[in-house]
């Protein structure tokens, strides 16, 4: 999966994330905040930011894998 197709799949996966994970991803990956800045905005510890970000990206990765398998299946 490449290019616009990949971007669309990621966007869909991001939209399906739980609110807390989506918020962290928005702040760090889309708005470009550091972990410390995101922590201050959300009012949670830096460790929580890191944990939610890790889980969010892992979910996206897993969803992309499912999407690719579905796409290739006859």
């Amino acid at each position: 999966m490449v290019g616009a197709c990949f971007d669309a799949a990621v966007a869909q996966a991001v939209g399906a994330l739980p609110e807390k994970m989506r918020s962290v991803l928005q702040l760090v990956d889309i708005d470009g905040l550091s972990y410390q800045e995101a922590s201050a905005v959300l009012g949670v510890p830096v460790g929580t930011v890191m944990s939610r970000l890790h889980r969010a990206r892992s979910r996206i990765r897993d969803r992309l894998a499912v999407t690719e398998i579905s796409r290739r299946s006859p």
Partner: protein
Amino acid sequence: MRLRRRSDEASCREVSRVLQAYRDGQVDELSARRVTRHLDACRRCGLEAEVYIRIKEAAGRMDGDVPSLPLARLRDFARRLAEEGPQASEPPA
């Protein structure tokens, strides 16, 4: 964030813990060097790092706020309703 062990070589387990922080530039210099060496040598971890880079970059290309899935579906239905009129199909549950 830093890798706990001070030996020269980082294990896959250690690297997986800090991989995303490493890609976000949030680890100390020594740990970053150890992770870089490991990624250069380990195909599995290198591939995982590559996936996370692509996800991060794709997310960075998204414009504006991230809509929730239900909101995206409602917006899509509203658009179709405006274009197709009452014949537009019901939004998915």
